[in-house]
């Protein structure tokens, strides 16, 4: 159960916040062309600001072993999410939206508000649905610490005003607490007998 990264996009299609937890290793972008990540990479390979591209042939950019910059990642994530969302709406009506998709190596969770804010979370494939989690981030962190912050501008060009301390701290602890519970869960049962208290611990694995 791993959380890779988290993105917020505003209604102007701009990425206003990125947070990465686990640095994704190379296995996250498998060199096989089966993963859907590969195709957008190929599409935008000509204008990415990659530092290592001169070492690589342009035919298969994922084979270069380098990593895309955070901004390029965000652009690609937005591209996928934006297209998928529009496709879903065309297929099944304007009220529908996709919740997540997965590839062989990661899972993308998606939540969009009525104000066109898009929240995206990348996790490993075993993660359950996290739409609720994204909604919680919006309600308890974004609205509380960004929207209601009088010092933060209404629009956030370049992410201005989003990465405030309270928001970042809240997000971090929220995500850390998402990690799986320890394998042993303890259920406590208290019995009171003859004014003396006995405690019975039942361990559930």
């Amino acid at each position: 159960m791993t959380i890779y990264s988290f993105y917020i996009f505003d209604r102007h299609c701009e990425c206003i916040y990125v947070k990465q937890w686990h640095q994704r290793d190379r296995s996250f972008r498998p060199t096989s062309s089966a993963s859907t990540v590969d195709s957008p990479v190929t599409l935008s390979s000509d204008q990415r600001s990659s530092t290592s591209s001169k070492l690589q042939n342009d035919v298969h950019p994922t084979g270069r072993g380098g990593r895309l910059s955070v901004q390029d990642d965000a652009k690609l994530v937005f591209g996928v999410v934006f297209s998928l969302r529009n496709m879903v709406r065309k297929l099944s009506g304007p009220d529908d939206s996709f919740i997540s998709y997965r590839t062989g190596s990661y899972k993308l969770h998606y939540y969009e508000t009525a104000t066109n804010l898009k929240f995206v979370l990348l996790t490993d494939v075993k993660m359950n649905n996290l739409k609720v989690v994204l909604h919680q981030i919006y309600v308890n962190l974004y609205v509380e610490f960004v929207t209601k912050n009088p010092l933060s501008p209404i629009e956030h060009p370049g992410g201005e005003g989003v990465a405030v301390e309270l928001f970042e701290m809240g997000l971090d602890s929220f995500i850390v607490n998402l990690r799986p519970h320890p394998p042993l869960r303890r259920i406590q049962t208290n019995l009171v007998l003859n004014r003396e208290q006995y405690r019975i611990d039942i361990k559930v694995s």
Partner: protein
Amino acid sequence: MSATKAARVGEDVWKTRIDKVNAELVTLTYGSIVAQLCRDFEGDYLEVNKQLEKMGYNIGLRLIEDFLAKTNMGKCANFRETAETIAKVGFKVFLNITPTVTNWTTDNKQFSLIFEENPLADFVELPDDGRAQNELWYSNMLCGVLRGALEMVQMQVDAHFVGDILRGNEVTEMRVTLVRIIDDELPPGED
């Protein structure tokens, strides 16, 4: 969403999820804002209306996020539903009033909100200078709030008061017109 369901949602959110403040505090704060604006613009009430609307607009841009977060509402299917939601959920949640939605035009793009009660205007008398009665829309901030909030959910509207009990009209009435649905913005071209 039907009107009754909207009313239920509004009631529910109001009861469980809203921090309340003293109504008179709101009334007096709002009153002092308007009074200060009237002084600042030396009785240019048209300008005061404009400033109130602008303040409301900026409130609305943020308030919509709080509204969505608290009520967990999705998109409205049509403008009629939007109107019910504004009246029965929006005003209920933030001001604990439910204005009546009425006077629809046949194309479903214009409606009126009739305010039986208006907490902003309690204890208020307009200045007795012969002009305020005809020029000042005392609660004009509400128009701006609606305009700002709806703009964020892709609806450009025009909202203005057409009657105010303070001016001696029969009812306090706001007219809301849907100008257009704002399209989603497209990402900038990659070239």
